[in-house]
């Protein structure tokens, strides 16, 4: 049988292609969901091979007169046996690519839900290919099945989750670790693909009922509508806040510090650096939030500092904290407001310095401001930070609060000096 099944021969080359593609598309970053989503981004061309090989099998059965002949085996049996090699091709390549992405991405356990939706998509496209092979000449069915998935996967209402995630960049990686994929998005992808499976089985004749064509069409239209409704509700970035029960929280001198497990391994510098920063800021009697957490900002309370950690070296961690302590004010997002981000950068730079951040990182992030402060209406930055640092605790806190409240109202201070 190995000799005659194109799916068998295509498995290895497709796997190699898929692994090459995914290895280029992702980077090692410890994030399981990102690795899985990156791996499933190869689905667009993988399902093309799946559908094409299924079309090939169907064409052989049609040419051999098998489909019309009276058998004891049901058409469902014959279909399942015929598409199984194509489904196995897809499953082997999908799993191989996910494993590769997880190993290459140093990502640990893959996100099983995305893999499951991907597998259902493979099953649905194998049946679409089989249907095409039964109804169309090989010269039409094979190339059209190779190409059709690209069009389908770009059709957003269809919401193949893995592809939409790829398009939207919604991975649980460095920048969205507090986000989880929306169940509605997974459900939409699942419903869409199950709809295709059932409609294709009716159209093939593997499932029988009165008015099969009408039933298949009605089922397909209904499935697309229901799936689209789910897709419509989740929006372009299908995410919800991640379940906070997975957070690992500790107390550091009265301040709560909560990190996601991906950022809390003993080999990582997140927790030690954050702990050191909290201790340092407390030593300077600076006002800091009572809880530091990696939850999405929308899921946290007022007294929580939202941590958005994307690099694991201490300076990058400090800069992330500085950004959290001096966030963009809400008024800056109102159209037609002229708000300069200079005061925010001044504030961030100061927090970074207060945490013991390096000169090099400060230069890297604020070099333009350090080089020509007068051009931006600010005093020489390093001197200013020196003055603030040398002032009394009360003066320093007063300077910080004044600057922070001005920024919160989208105003630029006329005077940066310590009062």
């Amino acid at each position, binding site marked *: *049988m190995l*000799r*005659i099944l194109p799916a068998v021969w295509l498995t290895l080359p497709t796997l190699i292609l898929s692994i090459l593609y995914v290895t280029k598309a992702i980077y090692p970053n410890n994030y399981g969901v990102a690795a899985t989503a990156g791996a499933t981004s190869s689905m667009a061309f993988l399902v093309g091979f799946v559908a094409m090989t299924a079309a090939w099998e169907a064409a*052989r*059965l049609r*040419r*051999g*007169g*098998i489909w*019309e*002949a*009276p*058998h*004891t*085996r049901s058409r469902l049996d*014959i279909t399942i046996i015929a598409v199984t090699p194509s489904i196995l091709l897809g499953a082997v390549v999908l799993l191989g690519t996910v494993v590769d992405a997880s190993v290459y991405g140093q990502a640990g356990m893959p996100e099983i839900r995305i893999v499951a939706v991907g597998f259902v998509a493979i099953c649905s496209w194998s049946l679409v290919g089989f249907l095409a092979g039964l109804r169309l000449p090989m010269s039409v069915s094979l190339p059209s099945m190779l190409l059709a998935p690209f069009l389908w996967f770009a059709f957003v209402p269809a919401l193949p989750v893995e592809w939409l995630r790829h398009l939207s960049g919604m991975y649980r990686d460095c920048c969205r670790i507090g986000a989880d994929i929306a169940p509605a998005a997974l459900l939409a992808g699942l419903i869409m693909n199950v709809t295709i499976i059932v409609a294709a089985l009716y159209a093939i004749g593997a499932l029988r009922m009165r008015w099969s064509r009408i039933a298949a069409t009605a089922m397909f239209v209904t499935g697309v509508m229901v799936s689209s409704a789910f897709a419509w509700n989740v929006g372009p970035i299908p995410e919800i806040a991640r379940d906070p029960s997975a957070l690992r929280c500790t107390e550091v001198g009265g301040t709560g510090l909560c990190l996601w497990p991906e950022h809390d391994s003993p080999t990582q510098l997140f927790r030690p650096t954050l702990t050191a920063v909290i201790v340092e800021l407390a030593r300077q009697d600076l006002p800091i939030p009572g809880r530091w957490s990696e939850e999405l900002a929308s899921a946290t309370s007022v007294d929580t500092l939202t941590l958005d950690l994307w690099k694991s070296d201490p300076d990058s961690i400090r800069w992330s904290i500085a950004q959290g302590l001096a966030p963009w004010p809400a008024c800056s997002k109102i159209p037609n407001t002229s708000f300069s981000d200079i005061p925010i950068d001044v504030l961030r730079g100061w927090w970074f310095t207060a945490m013991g951040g390096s000169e090099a990182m400060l230069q890297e992030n604020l070099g333009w401001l350090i080089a020509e402060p007068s051009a931006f209406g600010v005093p020489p930055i390093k001197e200013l930070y020196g003055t603030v640092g040398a002032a009394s605790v009360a003066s320093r806190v007063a300077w910080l609060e004044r600057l922070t409240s001005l920024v919160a109202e989208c105003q630029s201070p006329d005077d940066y000096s310590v009062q």
Partner: protein
Amino acid sequence: MHGFLYQDITFSRRRKGQGELAVLERLTWHAPTGVTALLGINGAGKSTLLSIGATALMPKSGKVSLNELDSRDQQTQFRARVAWMPQQYRAVPRLTVREQVAYSGWLKGMSRDDSWRGATEALVRVALQDLADRPASELSGGQQRRVGLAGALVHDAEVLLLDEPTSGLDPEQRAMFRELLVNIGADRTVVVSTHDTGEITTAYQHVAVLHAGNIAFDGALQDFAARAPAGSERPIESAFLALITGEK
């Protein structure tokens, strides 16, 4: 009634511009155990009758039964006990002869192991064992028909419906086929359609003639031959011609 029975079968085809053309009209026929030659001119409906017997076609009215099994209500069991070799045999591309025959067995409900075993035995019966590993689509037309015959034999059906099985066979293969008929027809119902009366030999025990949408003759070979005018050199052909032209 026991045996393979067509009951009150009516079947028509829709032809463009001609409306419905009756092919079979209230046909009732009991196919006896043994080998029956189903004779009829081209277009008489022989293939249609066999296709209905195999449930490849469904009649407008009437039913086919095999002992207690009804072809409509117990289709799966019915099909498992009836084998059909269509007039146009088509090999599945790239399958070997053995795979082709084993696949036929699997399609008829045999297990994987049984179908492989059955394929080997069926290929021996049609003398194709030496070509078992050749792609079926690469064989000659006559050899492919023997593959089709092996496919019909593989699951050891109680009824075999063979549609023009000898067309395309050379004389040696035809002789082999007649020998095969004697073997397989001993304890089961075998219906072989043909329009070539020269094919009818002592390998056949019965003759049925399909004419004008119904069975015009059904009886033993000797009885049919006896209808030929005295002194006929080809009694079967003469009897057939006499029957369809209405000559005495």
